[in-house]
């Protein structure tokens, strides 16, 4: 019997700096993570450092990460369902930027956004759902020419809402483990990353750990996103700090609270941005600034995933 020829292992790894350089001003991004879980925080910092402008972000619910992008005026438009810093309050920078008029938000429900990503991933132009009926989310819009439409189902006559699919230029997600070919494992909740990653024209996956291709292939049922979808892989331990990554580390609420309190004023935000983002050169320097001792305090304590 003829043995299979081993295919060479493709290496999709690039640095965080290189990955962010690929994102031109004005790009449309799917933004991964959900709530406090696995936000691409390090990617947000690097977008700020590289002074990107005019981005549009699509997401279900995001928090401190998109507040940073709003404060630094990286993003001008959002299509989303939710933002806040849960357990603390409203996101301070977005509040201010909305009032100033430098940010516009088109709001949908969470399920509507998931369906829009699923539609994009499936390659169909819209998806039907049973939310948003009878509300101002259907009746009122900010900047989209077509936000959502009501339709009578051609088969049953039932009323459904149609939402436009999204195919962003890039999908940015942060995962626990990825091999160098881009096969992705995600522990804990997946939020809307399964659909969101597949919707992107290009997909950049940040990861806590690069694992051996053999490790992935020894447990293929754990692959949440196969490498076929993935364009680039960025190794980025503590990439969601000060938010959390299931099985890896907990949030640093003291840092988050300090951020929240400080960002109530523009001056306070500018100082935070300077101290933690623009005065450091890289994600590693940011982590050094936080300090290894402090980081280790938040490392997940088995058997707990936090």
């Amino acid at each position, binding site marked *: 019997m003829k043995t299979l020829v081993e295919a060479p292992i493709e290496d999709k790894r690039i640095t965080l700096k290189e990955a962010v350089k690929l994102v031109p001003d004005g790009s449309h991004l799917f933004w991964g993570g959900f*709530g406090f879980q696995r936000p691409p925080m390090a990617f947000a910092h690097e977008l700020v450092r590289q002074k990107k402008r005019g981005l549009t972000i699509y997401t279900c619910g995001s928090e401190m990460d998109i507040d940073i992008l709003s404060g630094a005026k990286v993003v001008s438009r959002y299509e989303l369902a939710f933002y806040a810093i849960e357990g603390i309050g409203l996101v301070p920078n977005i509040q201010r930027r*909305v009032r100033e008029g430098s940010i516009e938000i088109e709001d949908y429900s969470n399920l509507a956004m998931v369906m829009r990503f699923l539609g994009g991933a499936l390659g169909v132009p819209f998806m039907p759902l049973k939310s948003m009926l*009878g509300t101002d989310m259907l009746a009122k819009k900010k900047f989209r020419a077509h936000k959502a439409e*009501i339709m009578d189902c051609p088969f049953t006559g039932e009323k459904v809402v149609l939402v436009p699919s999204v195919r962003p230029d890039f999908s940015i997600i942060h995962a626990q483990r990825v091999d160098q070919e881009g096969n992705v494992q995600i522990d804990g909740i997946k939020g809307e990353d399964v659909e969101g990653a597949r919707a992107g024209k290009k997909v950049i996956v940040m990861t806590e750990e690069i694992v051996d291709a053999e490790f992935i292939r020894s447990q293929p049922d754990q692959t949440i996103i196969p490498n076929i979808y993935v364009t680039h892989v960025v190794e980025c331990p503590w990439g969601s700090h000060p938010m959390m990554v299931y099985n890896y580390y907990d949030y640093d609420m003291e840092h988050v609270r300090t951020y929240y309190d400080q960002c109530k004023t523009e001056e306070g935000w500018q100082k935070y941005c300077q101290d933690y983002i623009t005065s450091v050169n890289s994600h590693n320097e940011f982590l050094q600034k936080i300090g290894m001792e402090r980081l280790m305090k938040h490392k997940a304590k088995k058997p707990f995933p936090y």
Partner: protein
Amino acid sequence: MVKYAKPDEFNTLELMAVCGSRQIKNGEVVFIGTGLPMIAALLAKRTHAPGARIVFEAGFIDSNAKDIALSIADSRLGWRASGAIGLLETLGLMLQGGHVDVGFVGAAQIDEYGNINTTYIGPFEKPTVRLPGSGGGNDIISSAKRIVVIMTHEKRKMVKKLDYLTSPGFLDGPGAREKVGLMGGGPSLVVTNLGQMDFDPKTKRMRLATVHPGVTSQQVVENSGFDLIVPKDMPTTDLPTCEELDLLRSIDPNGIYIPRKT
């Protein structure tokens, strides 16, 4: 015999959590967020509804969290959960698929038909405050069989006209939900710091059902910006039991969501 607490032995948030907990029946699928509803659901599981399954929209299913979570995506909710999936599962397949019995939501504004605003305060074109938005709130109120709203009772929150309708109650009255194609049963109870309100089956308007101990119907009316239906005989909200209070305090030992009575 069940021992009830005296009115000076608990605070209003504790009473609200107990009211919420009593809306959950054993074996039900319960859709909740963090905060007071989470405490209420955990209490129900430790008392009359051990078989209730708590679903969080981020993807944690049948959570048995032992530590208090700050985010609906908090890893704490993964502790002894039966599943950790995602939003398409929870909001799509589970909720829109018709498997959720009761959902808990909050509100920045509510009107007399139980319609809810969590998006804008002030005019849509130039809002004074941009609130968090729908999140999964609209999906939950659209499609769960019953809805319990937990909120504070103030005139500026119980309004005649919402600044923005994020999530549908009974819209403009009887038959309106069916007419626009909504599947779920709509709001069944509003729990506030002053009392509990249900909805008149004929008009679908909010109706005072019980007042909390020490609160009068008149006080509730004065704190409502719309005409609340007030029946003549007004029962007082059932007091929490001593067991419920002990459990509540063990669920949230550091008073993260229910600060201790001082």
